[in-house]
């Protein structure tokens, strides 16, 4: 049981214990640097340990910070330097929770891995798929979309059937110290005080970007093209007033940022790289979700191309794009926006 020190994994562990499983709580130490976002800190490990003590289960801390740097932090920095907008939480799930931890679990002889994600794993026919969690507001199927059959068979999401309110009520009823703990926010290795700019600025040289309109006329410049995201409206160095203008494209090679109206952001199709499937590759009608809390929109999926049923706002390259079945109930697979 991956115990983060938050309320969801606390209750998930309690549910497993109540169901009679032999549970061992594992806290992964991932980020070794500063953090103020409520993740990976010594205080969180303390909370995880105290919950484990209360549930009378063993608690271990695994130090995966080297893998975290290699698979999450370094690629995050690299992606930004390439003008992409990465989703590090998804890469963490892909490479740490459902790879490194699961490999370690195999080695140590555990039968199953559980986490506190708000999602469900159910059979469709004789294959397993990640289904949306019971709480539509907290559903996290998007961030665990990458699970293959091998992992789905032995992964458990014990709070996937509960709403967040039910989780908190349960935690309070059990007297768990994490019952009223706020949800973790944002990226764990980026401090709220310093922000993304401080983090990236310490690791990559920022380049000045030239802001042009769709016709190529120069409108201004930004100090750090690495900080700019497709779809962004504020902070692109343009005077106020006038029509709203959005970043519609970023050209890294020429350090150019193209801005246009919201209409210029409308796309009828998009391409996706590095697609992974829960089972078989799928062609046909799907619902497509492009951000952790965004709504899924209908599209036709054909190979690496998503054809929207109606035009959609451009998805920033680097974002995870997750395909749900046409009924928007379970994950078929997902990839990275090109």
């Amino acid at each position: 049981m991956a115990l983060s020190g938050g309320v969801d994994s606390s209750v998930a562990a309690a549910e497993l214990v109540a169901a009679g499983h032999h549970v061992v709580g594992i806290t992964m130490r991932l980020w070794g640097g500063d953090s103020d976002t409520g993740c990976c800190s010594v205080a969180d490990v303390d909370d995880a340990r105290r919950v484990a003590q209360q549930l009378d289960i063993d608690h271990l801390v695994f130090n995966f910070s080297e893998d975290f740097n290699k698979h999450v932090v370094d690629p995050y920095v690299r992606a930004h330097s390439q003008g992409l907008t990465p989703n590090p939480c998804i890469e963490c799930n892909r490479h740490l929770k459902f790879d490194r931890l699961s490999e370690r679990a195999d080695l140590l002889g555990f039968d199953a891995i559980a986490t506190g994600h708000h999602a469900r794993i159910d059979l469709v026919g004789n294959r397993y798929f990640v289904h949306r969690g019971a709480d539509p507001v907290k559903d996290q199927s998007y961030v665990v979309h990458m699970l293959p059959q091998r992992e789905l068979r032995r992964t458990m999401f014990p709070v996937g059937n509960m709403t967040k309110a039910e989780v908190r009520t349960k935690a309070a009823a059990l007297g768990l110290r994490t019952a009223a703990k706020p949800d973790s926010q944002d990226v764990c290795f980026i401090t709220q005080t310093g922000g993304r700019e401080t983090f990236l600025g310490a690791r990559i040289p920022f380049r000045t970007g030239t802001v042009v309109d769709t016709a190529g006329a120069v409108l201004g410049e930004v100090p750090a093209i690495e900080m700019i995201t497709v779809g962004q409206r504020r902070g692109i160095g343009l005077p106020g007033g006038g029509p709203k203008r959005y970043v519609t494209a970023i050209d890294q090679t020429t350090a150019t940022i193209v801005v246009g109206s919201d209409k210029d952001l409308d796309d009828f199709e998009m391409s996706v790289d590095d697609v992974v499937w829960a089972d078989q590759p799928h062609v046909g009608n799907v619902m497509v979700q492009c951000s952790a809390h965004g709504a899924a929109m209908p599209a036709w999926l054909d190979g690496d191309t998503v054809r929207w049923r109606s035009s959609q706002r451009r998805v920033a390259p680097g974002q995870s794009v997750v395909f749900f079945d046409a009924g928007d109930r379970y994950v078929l697979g997902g990839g990275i926006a090109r």
Partner: protein
Amino acid sequence: MRGRSLNAVHDGYTYLDHAATTPMRADAVAAMLPFLTEQFANPSGSHRFARQVRKAIDEARDDVADVLGCRPGEVIFTSGGTEADNTAIFGTLDRCGGLALCPAVEHHAVLQAVEARRGRVIGVDAAGRVDLEALATSLDDVSVVSVMAVNNEIGTITDIAEVAAVVRRVAPQATLHTDAVQAACWLDLRALTPHVDLMSLSAHKFGGPKGVGVLVARGRSVIAPMLVGGGQERERRSGTHNVAGIIAMASALRATDQQRSDENARVAALRDVLVDDLQEQLDDVHETVDRAHKVAGSAHVCIDGIENEALLYLLDEAGVCASAASSCASGAMEPSHVLAAIGVPNERARGALRLTLGRTTTADDIARATTVIVEAVRRLRKGAPS
């Protein structure tokens, strides 16, 4: 008697983590009990009950001084090894100015104190002994040199007499401190003391209780107190005495001193069997430091093809208590600064296993631990992704 008190509580477990802490000696527990019950007075008080407790503290100080080969007035009771180490570094710098210097393999209680004051950290040889040539050429402006007598991770003994000779010759004004926390069970402290100005000890490493230790501050040393207030310990360390702890520490130190020579021979033989058997039954088990250079209780090996976090879990499941490197506050294992300093490649350090033996370790413990470790390593190597 040996080991019974431990096994009575932890039947079926094998404790090979004596460098982390030792089980308390029964005599030490008995010695402290009266001071947790009827003898509760504050030794700094002026009434008869206070005087009784004061007498016990004074006698404990005499006992400690005797074992350490120093004067009673040179014994400062502290809250443990970390406070003693911190006081040695910060206390000297605050009084004398100048720089602190230590080798890279010191315990964090010294290393981080030196780094906090922007001191010098110098290299060591492959066994973890301070580089004497580097030491001789790095002493400019140095007011305090700190070199551990025995390393807590790999067990290496440093010849403090050699270190002292260099320091006295090149920087006669400098204060020499040794962290002897891991030395108490294995080295004759009377032979160590004359070479240094300051020395740190921690009671729980030699069968005493946690939360109490000693800083020896000999004749010419001058240290500023880290704690001020009531003026205890001749104003070198204020704060009401940890009476029961001090009494128990003195008892444990005396017993340790009396049994040291026999224990060295007995435990070294057990350690040799342990490492030899592991190397015989498993391929690619590397002894980190040659046995000739380390204390009897230390068996440190690097096992190729496994990760020590996984190994320690399996050992724990099978009732064998061991450790890897030092642990950070979260309980996660951190890469060892000691192994990095002696040039062990990162890849090999992942398989580092510290087994530390002590007074309660028996031949049965060693046989059992060997079986468990061999089985666990085989299992991990079999399951490891190629």
